[in-house]
């Protein structure tokens, strides 16, 4: 058991099946889908609220998604801890800034990578709320319920992602 938890990686099929079973428990015990991006909108709302509570409470979006700590927010906290634990157990926990593929293409400049990451994050946060879900909420939880919007969303995520990645790094599969 311990050896298994300490393994560097598991089969993607096993990991996927594990996420599937996790989603059963979320539907059963929490009556909701598993999605990550709402927590980021809640965080934005909490920050706005710390600046001006009155103004934040009057914003229609934060009346729709209340900026409070709840299941969804704790999910993201847990995700950070769970991944840290897994990396630590397999001896793979280490601080990194510039991923290998990025370094190969654009060099080891940390500020460049962080600026790019911030830019990508802003677009992603905007897009996730715009489409009302992300790779987990639409991509897994929604598709498995045969939701039409989720299947269309995940096709758009990957179609746009594949084209953008190809333009940035070159269409290496061609």
């Amino acid at each position, binding site marked *: 058991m311990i050896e298994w938890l300490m393994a560097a990686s598991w089969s993607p099929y096993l990991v996927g099946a594990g*996420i599937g079973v996790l989603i059963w428990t979320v539907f059963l015990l929490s009556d909701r889908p598993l999605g990550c991006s709402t927590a980021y909108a809640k965080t934005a709302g909490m920050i706005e609220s710390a600046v001006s509570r009155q103004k934040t409470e009057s914003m229609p979006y934060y009346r729709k998604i209340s900026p409070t700590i709840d299941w969804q927010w*704790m999910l993201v906290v847990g995700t950070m801890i769970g991944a840290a634990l897994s990396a630590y157990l397999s001896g793979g926990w280490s601080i990194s800034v510039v991923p290998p593929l990025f370094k190969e293409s654009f060099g080891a400049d940390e500020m460049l990578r962080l600026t790019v990451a911030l830019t990508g994050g802003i677009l992603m946060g905007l897009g996730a709320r715009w489409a009302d879900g992300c790779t987990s909420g639409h991509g897994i939880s929604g598709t498995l319920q045969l939701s039409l919007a989720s299947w269309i969303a995940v096709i758009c995520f990957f179609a746009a992602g594949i084209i953008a990645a190809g333009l940035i790094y070159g269409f290496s599969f061609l």
Partner: protein
Amino acid sequence: MAFDMIRSSGRAQKALGLLSGLVFGFLLQKGGLTEFDVILGQLLLTDFTVVKVMLSAILVGMAGVFFMRWMGLVRLQIKPGSMGSTVLGGIIFGVGFAILGYCPGTAAAAFGAGAVDALVGMVGIVIGAGIFARLYPALDRLILNWGAFSADTLPELIGLKPGIVAAVMAALIIGLLYLLDALGR
């Protein structure tokens, strides 16, 4: 429902959220999805780990959720969509996905595993979500409801029973996973 007590307890839900996150983050790290190179590899079509994980999760998740629904234990949580919301938002998300190299869930997991760029990406996602909240009244009026989809689910769209569509989808997913394996991806 049998689980009303747990479902309506705020404290229990926070604990369950944390616990679900622990499992989710552990699985994402073990699957290699905390690595930028693995995610970009999927978008560059050189590494199919992300698709394998997602399709296996959909296959197993679908079987359990539809079975529990048939048992009367759970209800579906379907969001309606539109061209203006789902398609436009999805395209913006996809471009951000390629630039950041993590998604909202895997960014949190990658940060947990020590990736500083993922933390900065998370800050960006919060800013982007904040921008959306500011734009929401105007977007809701002008764009988000444009081209509403005629159906909420694939079974409704096709006009077949959910059980049949789920079975066909399961067969397609298994076929696709076999194909990827056969192609050595």
